[in-house]
Every structure is written in C-alpha cells, then in structure tokens.
C-alpha cells in the first residue's frame, strides 16, 4: 500500500513538473493566442527551466551506508570520528599492532622464532625485502594512509560548524601528530640514519604536506634532512597548538589520546634521531620535571605491563578498549600455539643480570616447544587475553634520550645520573655505573636502551642511527651480522606495481 501511495505521489510530481507554476503562468498567456506550437514550446521550456533549477537537487543523492568527506566534517560529532580513525590505523596489524613493532626487534636480534615454518617477517629477518616483494609494503601503505587521513582533517577542519577555535586547534594538533609520526616511522624504516652523510643529504622518503589528486604521480623522496625538518616543524606546530586548545573527545583514557606531552616526547625522539641534543635535553627535562609520569617502581614493574593497565610513566599508549585478540601480544604469548612463536634471542637475555627485574627469570615466561625452552617477554602479558595496550611513549625512554643527549654533548655527570636511575630502578642492588670514557658511556646507554625498551620498537633503529655494527649470534638468519655502513640498514621501499 505504501508503495502505491508512493507511486501515485511520484506521478503527481511528474505532472507537476510539466505544469510547474512558472511555466503554467507563461503558458496561460500564450494559450490565449491559441498558438499550439508556441504553447508546447513554452511547456517544454518551462520543464527545462524547472529541471535545471530543481533537478540539481534531484541529482544530489547522499549515500546512506557511508558518508561523504564534506558531510562528516559538518559537525564535531562526525569530525572527531575521523581523528579516532587515525588512531585505528596505528592499531592495524601492518603498523604498531604487528609489523612495524616487530620489525626493529627481529632485525636487531631481540627475537628468534620458536617454530620453523610460516614465520612472521621471515624475509625481513633475512634482509631479503625488495621493492616488489616486500613485507613492509603494508606498513608503507598504512603510514601514507594515516598521512592521508591527517591531511583530510587539515583540509576540512574549518568546516566543522559547532567546533570553537580551541577545539579546531586541538584537531589540527592531533592531525600534526599523526602526520609527523607516520612520516617519522617511514623515515626510520626506509632511510639511513641522520648521520649517514655529513649533511644528511641522502635519500629519505616522499613527504606529503597535503593530499593530492589520487591519480597524480607521487613526488620524489626528499633528503633525510628535509624530511626531519618537515617532521619537527609538524611536531612544533602540534606542541604550540595543544597549548591553545580544548578537549574534543568525550570518552576514553586521557593517555590513550595524544597530548601536548606526547607531542613533546615524540619531538624529543625526533630531535635525538637528528642529533639536536639541546632540544632533546630541554624537552626531556620539561617532561621529567612535570612529575606527571612517575617511573614505574621496581616492585610494580612486572605486573604493570599486564593487560590494559596504563603505565604510570606512559605519556601515550595505544589503548585496546574492549577489544580482545588479534593483538601484537598474541605473537609473544606462549600459550597461543598458533601465533605465540616470537621468542627472545639469547643475545638479549644475556644482557641482564639475574637480579634485574627485566631479566630472563623475571620479565620472561618460559615455554617448551619441540623440546627446546624458549623465553617470551611479559611486556605483552595479558590478563585474560593478550590484547595489551601498546606503550608508545613512556618516560624511561625520555630519561635515556636525555642521558644520550647529555653524553653526546659532554655532560657526563648528567648522563650518568639518568642512566643510573634507570639501572637502579631495574635492580636497586646494582652497583652505580661509572665511566670517564665517552665511548663506554655511550655504549652503556645504548645497551641500557636495549634492555629497557626491547620489544617496544627501538633497537634496530638505535643501531642504525648510532652507526653500530649489527651482531646477531643466537640467530638462524642467512645474514646474521653485518658492519655499518650497509644498505640493509634501510629497508627497500616498496614500489607500487
């Protein structure tokens, strides 16, 4: 019945098109002249006029299942979902959820496989990625997709009708964060370190300051120097915009969203990578002295990593919410026979003393596979599942970065203080570390970084930027070790077929 009414309605609509008020009035005048031809011509012209004016609306069909870009940015409730969508991207398996997080671990020798077939990132483990056959291709796409999402926000944020200037600033600040982070992550994987050439003029990555027409060819990669300038500029913008912004999200844990402090922490990391020591020291000091992120205590250390806890020292965590399964932790979970096979290499385990809270017997679980005992990190130990938060920015890293910057700038005392803070936190009984040698100090800081930040996506990048040789001994790769410099420190960029 409803359909019938609809049909009838539509019929009248069509008739009314033919007899729309405007054309009828004109037609009325002309009918008096009894010129049949003219009348018809007028009716048709009237219809045409009607159509040109009203049919524009008739032809505007908005989708029901999805929403157009222009439409979603009309209000705050829509606009902020696009930002949440950027966080979603970081949680993809090709990004922090798996590939990107495992990449610097498996290449650096922190991980060995506890099974012999179908291993994750196997070609990467063997340094066999090529432009056309590349296990990092998914990551490459996702990182640029994240940039695309962020740029969409820049393009449309001014159209959000119900957002005030402060909220718009927050949206821009977040978009800057994503754009910087994705570019930075790309640069870490696909380019040599900053010091590879004296002026960092070696090839970096393609940067995308704005979205281009999808069919346009990609711009050529810029130098590493230019790329870092772009990234740090974005992060500086983010820091200043956060300082003049207002909250936009209505839910969730604060540390699950980027913040000004997260921007500072990432900016400090970028400064460390580009050897900007004063910047590292000043930002790290700001974060440390804010006292907002107290280091986890020794006694709380192991349990703090469990599940969806927010670490006291976390500045930003990629939070899991209610989602279960399908997480990075699945690969480090010895109880999962299908996925839990990323075991710890002895190279790493041997770096700890037994009393260290992070040592083999403390922060690792053992499991026997094919009569061999393997150790799995507890950094992703779950409570009921292994869907842990990913702790992307935390204060221990900030301390170690400051230590490194101080050591590089000749401030040994300050460097040793920070280094020992982290050392003693892990093992209060450990003797205080002291050296007068710059090299020894720097090496110890690097080793401590590996001990503290392993499985959090740092080690291989640290080796690369510090121009160290890669040495993997507990290793089954066809290429376990190679000296710096080597092309293999930068992963081959995938090429779009």
């Amino acid at each position, binding site marked *: 019945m409803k359909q019938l009414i609809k049909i009838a309605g539509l019929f009248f609509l069509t008739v009314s098109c033919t007899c729309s008020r405007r054309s009828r009035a004109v037609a009325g005048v002309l009918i008096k002249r009894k010129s049949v031809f003219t009348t018809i011509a007028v009716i048709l012209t009237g219809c045409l006029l009607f*159509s040109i004016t009203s049919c524009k609306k008739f032809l505007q069909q908005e989708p029901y299942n999805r929403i157009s*870009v222009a439409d979603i940015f009309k209000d705050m409730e829509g606009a902020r*979902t*696009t930002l949440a969508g950027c966080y979603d991207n970081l949680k993809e398996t090709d990004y922090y959820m798996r590939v990107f997080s495992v990449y610097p671990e498996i290449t650096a020798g922190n991980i060995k496989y506890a099974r012999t077939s179908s291993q994750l990132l196997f070609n990467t483990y063997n340094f066999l990625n090529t432009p056309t056959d590349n296990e990092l291709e998914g990551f490459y796409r996702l990182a640029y997709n994240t940039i695309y999402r962020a740029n*969409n926000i820049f393009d449309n944020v001014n159209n959000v009708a119900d957002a005030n200037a402060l909220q718009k600033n927050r949206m821009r600040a977040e978009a800057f964060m994503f754009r910087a982070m994705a570019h930075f992550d790309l640069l870490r994987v696909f380019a040599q370190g900053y010091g590879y050439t004296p002026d960092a003029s070696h090839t970096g990555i393609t940067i995308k300051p704005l979205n281009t027409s*999808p069919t346009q060819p990609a711009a050529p990669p810029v130098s590493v120097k230019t790329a870092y300038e772009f990234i740090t500029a974005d992060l500086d913008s983010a820091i200043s915009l956060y300082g003049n912004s207002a909250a936009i999200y209505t839910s969730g844990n604060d540390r699950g969203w980027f913040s000004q402090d997260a921007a500072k922490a990432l900016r400090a990391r970028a400064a460390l990578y580009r050897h900007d020591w004063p910047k590292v020291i000043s930002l790290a000091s700001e974060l440390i002295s804010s006292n907002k992120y107290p280091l986890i205590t020794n006694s709380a250390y192991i349990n703090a990593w469990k599940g969806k806890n927010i670490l006291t020292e976390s500045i930003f965590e990629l939070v899991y*919410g209610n989602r279960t399964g399908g997480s990075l932790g699945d690969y480090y979970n010895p109880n999962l026979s299908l996925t839990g096979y990323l075991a710890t290499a002895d190279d790493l385990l041997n770096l700890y003393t037994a009393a260290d809270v992070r040592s083999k017997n403390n922060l690792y679980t053992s499991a026997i596979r094919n009569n061999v005992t393997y150790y799995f990190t507890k950094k992703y130990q779950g409570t009921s599942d292994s869907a842990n938060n990913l702790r992307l920015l935390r204060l221990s890293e900030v301390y170690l970065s400051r230590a490194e910057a101080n050591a590089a700038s000749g401030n040994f005392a300050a460097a040793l203080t920070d280094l020992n803070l982290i050392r003693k936190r892990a093992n209060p009984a450990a003797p205080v570390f002291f050296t007068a040698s710059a090299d020894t100090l720097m090496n110890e800081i690097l080793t401590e970084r590996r001990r503290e930040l392993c499985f959090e996506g740092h080690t291989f990048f640290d080796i690369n930027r510090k121009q160290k040789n890669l040495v993997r001994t507990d290793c089954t790769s066809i290429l376990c070790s190679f000296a710096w410099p080597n092309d293999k420190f930068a992963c081959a960029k995938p090429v779009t077929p």
Partner: protein
Amino acid sequence: MRSAGNLRFCVMAVIFTLFCAAAVAQDTRIIKGEVLAEEDGQLLSGVTVLLKGTSTAMATDARGRFNVSLNSSQAKTGVLVVSFVGYAKREIKINSRTDIRIVLVKINNTLTDVVVTNSYSRPKRKEEVVGSIATVTAKELQTSRPIESLDKMLEGLVAGVQVEPSSELGTPVRINIRGQNSLTPLLTSNRTALTTSAQPLFIIDGVPVTEQRRGDETIAFLNNEQLLNPIAGINPDDIESISVLKDASAASIYGANASNGVIIITTKKGKAGKTKINLGYSSGINIPFNRIKWLDGQQYHGLAKELYLNEGRSPFDAELLAGASDINTPWFELTNRYGSFNNVDMDMSGGNDNMQYRFSASYLGQQAIQKGNDLTKVYLRLGVDNQLTSKLRMGITLAPTITKKNALNVYGEVPIVPNIPAYNTDGSFYQLGTLLVPNPLAILAQNTAYHEGGSLNGNINLEYSILKNLRVSTSFGTDILINKLNLFESSKNATGFTKGGFAQIYDRTNFSWISFSQVNWSPVLKKIHQFDVTAGIELQSQNTKLLRGEGSGFSYYRLNELSNAQSQSSASSKQTSSSYAVYGQALYNYNQKYFITLSGRYDAASVFGTDVNSTVNASGGAGWTVTKEPWFKNNKWLNQLRVRASYGTTGNSRIGSYEARGLYEFNNNGYNGQVSAYPSSTPNPNLGWEKSTKLNFGVDIGIFKRINITADVYQSTVADAISLLNIPAENGFPSVLANIATMRNRGFDFSINSQNMTGSLNWTTTVTFGFNKNIITSVKNRSAFYSASENASVLREGISTSAIWGFKWAGVNPATGKEQFYDNSGTIVPVDLLDISMSKAYYLGDRLPKLQGGIINNLSYKGFSLTVNLLYSVGGKRLINYRNDWNGRNLDNRNQSVNLLDRWQKPGDVASIPRLSRTTRFVTNSSRYLYEDTYLKLSNVTLNYAVPKRYTDKLGGIRVTVFANGTNLFYWYKQKSPAGRNGLKEYKFNFPEAQSFTWGIRASF
C-alpha cells in the same frame, strides 16, 4: 460476451443458409472459407482473396471469413490468390471445395515488418529504420520452450547477440551485444563491482529493468546474497516482440546507458474485436546430460591410498586413512533426479474501438535435476488501452510476478568422497570424519536456500493529439522488486555444526521509477517529405534497500527463525541514484527513398563526479533504398537493396551510486571508547561516463522475394572505460576507480532469412552469424589487475577484456611426476620453480567466441510445423573448475574426476595427471584446464500440430494446437573427451546440465 457472440453466430448462420439456398438456384457455387495465421492460429481479418485471372476480389471480415460466388467451372479449376501484409502470398486451387481453410505463414524479417525502435516513439516500418535493430517476434522466440527466462531464449536468434550459457535456474545471465563493451569486473577482496555493468539495458514497455548489483554496502555488511535474474519478472508468453538495438543510431536515444546495447521488450496488447481466450498447458522432464564421471568407491580408495603412500605413510596407515574399499555411494544419483517442468497459462483479450484490454496469467513450475533447486513463478499482466476522448488516449499496464526459488548448493563445488555410506545404520545421515565436509543428503534435508519475492512492473501513459500530426504524451512507470532470501545451515550437518546452526535472511527491495513527457510531430509535407520528430524529458530514480539478519546458535534445530538464535546480528544498507535526461530524435525521409535519423540525449546523473556529472550523446544515420530508384525498378531478382550508415556515441553510467565520492565509513568498535571513521574511498571528481563511439555500415538485400539478407559491419570504441587504477602508495590509497582504459570491438553481423519453399510445404531457414574481436587498446595502470574468480581475467593492453590469463602447461615430467610449465622465455620449468607473478603469465585465449550464431529451420506442412534450432560457437575458450581434477589435493575429503586415474605413478610414466600429492604447488590458471569451446548444439526441436478444424468445430470453434519440444538435445564439440574420461563436454557446467523434453497443448477460443 460469449452469449452475444453466439447470438451473432446464429444470425449469421441463418443468413448463410438462406444465401446458400439462393445460390444453388442460380447454378452458382458459394465458396466460403477462413484465413488464419500459422503462428498462433488466430483468424486474420482484412486478408485479400482474389480469384486468379479475374477481378473478383474480396477481403476477409472481422472474424477472418470470406465467401465468394463462382460459376461451376471456376469452382472446379479456379485458383484463389490470398495475400496479406507480412505474410507469404498463397495460391490455393479450389478443386470444387466449398469450405476452404487457408493458413498463411508469416514472412520473417521483411522490410514491410513493423519494428519497435525505442520506447519513445511509435513502431516504424523496417524500411524506415536506419540503425541496426534486430527484432524477434514471439513466434521466433519460441516461447513454448521450457526455458524460464527470455534472455536465455535469445541464444542464437539474433546476429551479434551472444548469450553466455548457464545451467542454473533463475540466476543472472550474461548477454553480450556485439562483444563485451565494458571491462570485465575484476573482484578484489574489498571491492566488489569495479566496472560498469556489462549488461545491455533492458526496457519492458518503456520501463527500464533494475539490475541487481552488489557493491555499495559497507564492508561490514558482508553481503553473501544470491542474486536473481532481473529479466525473470516477465512471462515469455506475454511478449509481442523483442528489439535489440545494436548501433549508435538506434541506441543513442538511451544515451548514457546504451553502451552495451538496448533490449526493448514489447508486450502483447489487446485488439478490438471479439474476446479471444488462449489456454495453454505444457509439461516435461529434465534429464541429466553430459554428466561428469566421478571416481567410484573402489577407484577412489585406490587413489586415496596411493596419495597417502606418496606422502610417506606406512601401507597400514594409508589403507586406514583411505577408508573403505567396498562402499560405493552414488552421490550424483542420490542428489539428482529427473526434474520436471510445468507451465499453465491463459490470456484473454478483446475490446471495442474505444477500449482494448489484455489479461494474462501464467504459472511456471520448474525443477532442476539437482535436488533442492527449483523455481516457481506466477505471472499476471493486465494491459488496458482507453480512448478517453477523440484526442486523449490512456494506457495502463500492471504486471505483478511472484517468484519462489530454492537454490541449495549441495556439494560446495565438488562431490563428497564415494567410499562412505550415505546413512548410518540407524538411518541418520553419515557424517564424514570430523564434520568438515557436509553430507549432501543432510544438506538437502536440513538446510534452506529459499528465495521468495515478487516484482511489479507497471506503467501508465497518456497521449493527447493536439493536431493530426502533433501529439504530446507523458508516461510514468515503475519497476519494483521485493525479494527475501532465507539461508539456513543446520547444526545437524557440517555446514552449521560449529555455529550451532546458522541462518541469514536478506531482504531486498528495489524500487525504481521513470517518467517522461514528450512531444511528437510527424507531418508529411508535399507528400514526399516525411518527418517524425520527438523531443522530451525524462526523470529516473532508483533505490535499493537491503536488510540482513543473521543468527547462530539455534536453541532447537528445527526452528530456524532468527528469534530462536542465541546470537543475532543485523545490518542494513540503502542506496539511491537519480538521473535526468533530455532526449530527442528526428527522422526524415524523402519519398521513402532517402532516410535520415538524428538522435541525441543529454544525461545528468547522481552517480558521477561533481565536475562531470552530465554528458551528451548523439548519433546520426542515413539510409538509401536503392531499389526505389526509378532506374532500378523491375529488376528480376533483386527486389530490395538498401544501404545504411550510422555514427554516434552512447555511454555507460551503471557503476554503483557513489563511486566518485570520497567517503568515510564507520568502524563501530572505535578507538578508546570513541566511534571512529576511516576513508573507504578517495574522491575522484574526474570519474566520468564511459563513452563508446559506434560506427555501423549495413545493407539489406532481398533476392527473388524469398531471401532477405541483413549484414552489418561495425566498430565500437569504448573510451574512458572504468576500472580500478593503481595509484602510488604515497597518495594514501592503493587504488581508485577511474576512467583508465580504451577498448575496441570490431565485428560483423549477418543474418539471412530464406523462404526455401512456399506452398503447402513451407520451409524457411534463418542463419545468424556474429563475428567480434575485442581489444584493450590502452590501460593507464602500470601493472595488470588480475582476478582468478572471473575466469582468470586480466586488464592488460593489447589483449581482449575477456582474455584468460595464465600459464602454459608443459605436461607431466616423466621422471619426477611433477607438472611443468613454459616460462616467459619458453623453457620448461617444474611447477615449484615457476614464477607465478601475474606479469609472467601468458594470454591463453578468449572467454568469448570469435564467431557464434544460430541456424533455425522451420518447416510447415498442413497443420504440422517443425522448428529446429542449431547453435554454434567458434573459438571461445573455457577455463574449467580445477577442483574437479586437483592432483589429489583434496582427495582426502572430496571425490575427483575419473581423469585422475591417468596419474603419474612411477618414473618413466608418461601421464597426463601429475603424481598425487596434497603439497605440491598448484597453478589454477593453467592451460591444462583450458578447453576450446567450439561446438555445434542441437538446442531445440519443436513440433507443432494444429488440429484440423473439422475435429474441433464440434467444440464450438476452438482451435487446438499440440506441440512437443526437446531442448539441449545434442552437442558436437571440436575438442573430444578422451574415451571413458571427462573433457569439455562433461566439465563445461559446474551445475549439472539437463536435457528437457516437454509436450503441450494450446487452445484458442
């Protein structure tokens, strides 16, 4: 009505008797008779009956009867010459008969035939048509065949129209008019429809049929809906004629949707006169035909054992794993049957000068040979034409259809192993192993795949004649489809076991309407300048709503409604599109000798990018009837010669509703408690219409007034063909829909119609022939997209869009028993070393034939008429389902083709099948599975017998026709199947092929 007719009959009879008496007195004879049409037994009025050599002539009356008074010698030796427009002239010797029944046979494809050229203007005489239009009448369509939809019936009847054969009931059928004019859709994981529709535009009485397509739902919708054939909403018995518009001149009035050609279906209308009633019944059986030969239990056991031994198992284990050797369950027989076909139809038509009507009702019940697959349809159609005033005419058509269809997939793709029993000893269904592979009998008994729906096609039109030659008209039509698909997988068998029973319900509503208003002016100036000008505007809108409900964990296995499921979920989707057009057509002819047709259409649609959402298509054509020139008159043998040429453009906009937009989709899980959205497509404001430019040259020749030849050469260039374009990863997306390719179809259509014999034995032959060559002339993508699911299709420059892309098989290595392939450089490499990246593959062949057509013979003698349809196809290739013959890969839980018996066993064996193994690498798009689909098929034989009047007269003037029909009777394949093994003949259709035999009776009052 009946009683009035009887009264009239009585009065006539009385007058007749008196008249006869008078005639006898004057020694003259009264000869009376009737003239009827051979195709439907209807009496023909207005037929000219002439006594040869005299001026005595008369016309049949409204009831098709005539009488003439002759002297006795004329009555003995006289000859009656009977002629009527569109029918073959007959000369009948009187031979002292006084009551003569004359059957006239329709002449096919003559230039005097009337052709429906489009839904906007009145039918034209064929002579006036400049474009390439092929018409099929109801008789030529042979609607009594047991074929459920008219698109399948078109196979072989029209030159240049290829129907891709399908053995399943009621599923969409692919039709290619002059080749494929859209790129083959290449399915990828998250995009479903990547190209424009490759189907022609179907228009039923002015209302376009909405094609069911997937693609616009969100990814979260997870659409597993089975689609129905959109054309199945029309009863073949209701069809008056089908016009196939092939070139630009014919089709460009449909502008942006006419690129793949247009098929115009015109339904029968009531005629003024006595009420006519037709009743028909037909019934038949479907028999399995060209079945695949599967391994029997013992053979299967032997091969399975060998497979396990090859894998290094001990003989004891292998024997154990291979299962029983003494069980042979004939699964094919258990899951197939002799299907049935039942059709009952009636129609009633009549009216007076002011009002004519026709009503028809029909029931179709068809069982496929595979159990669990059947189709029931009820069609109703009412058409009323009413002359409201002397100037205003109104027509209304309403055609509801009800469809019920079962479509259970019994096997997956390949049958279950033969050496297990069908039932346990307690009578329950035997389940194989750990419930991985379902027992097909359990599926049949416990699962559901049931469509239930209806469609409504209707329209109303008004026509007002302002002057004699000037008319305005408006029309409004709708096409509505409602379908509910119930899928249920029971927890009692492997399909739904792990989910505790699983049900899905899809509820689809398509609603579309079209409305056009136009003016038509058709003056004749100075008697030699004939014009016919039409101009109008049209609005169209379509919307599709889809609702999916899903449930699993059913509390009680026999209650399948979703409310009984422990976990339930639902999803819905809606999409709309609208378009607006201004169209016009101008026809001019000078003295019926020179013809010019100009058409054009402006389209604007919601579908495309904002920058390019409107387009203009136009065409022009000219024709010249050479034989009408005075200098050509009186040629003995060449009675018709006409040449035609046309050039113009058409478009294709059927791409889905919002493809040009940048769209965000929501992720309901969200992040950190906040709903999140992600861009699911990037905007491409430049996405525009595909445009095809068509050039056509044609000639129509009539020889000896018996042979009619129509031949056309054409070229169609599709520019801006739409497909996915790879874009640089740095742009943030892997691909975007864009206008990326150009493609060309070139070919030649030819049809010949010959009246081989006329007279009491009438024999006509029609041969159709279509040759087409497709080539993709350019593609913007740097590498080719490939899709295994669409017959290993690829989008690649220099080859056809229907190309099959794969690897050349080099047989089995006698030493190792492994398959070998030719690599790029032509050297033979073992399968494990083959580089199977798609850039290294070869062009293996074309899915579509080079040339194809039909040969239709029609013989009639007295009341008998015999129609024989032969179809042929040359040069197409077919990639068969490799799972039938999979090197033992799924031999542990599925049966395999008997071809597997020829496997390699030991070094030195020269075998056609490699060593049985489940782990050896396998190439699906291998030329090993490619067959040349060159065949000749006896697709249909129909024998009709019109029961002579003298038998039926006592029944009150009923005309009775009985007929018998066989379809799919015989195949000849160029590529023969090896003895005792399977070849193309058996492998061609996955769904078992059937042969049908039907008989029927038709009565007309």
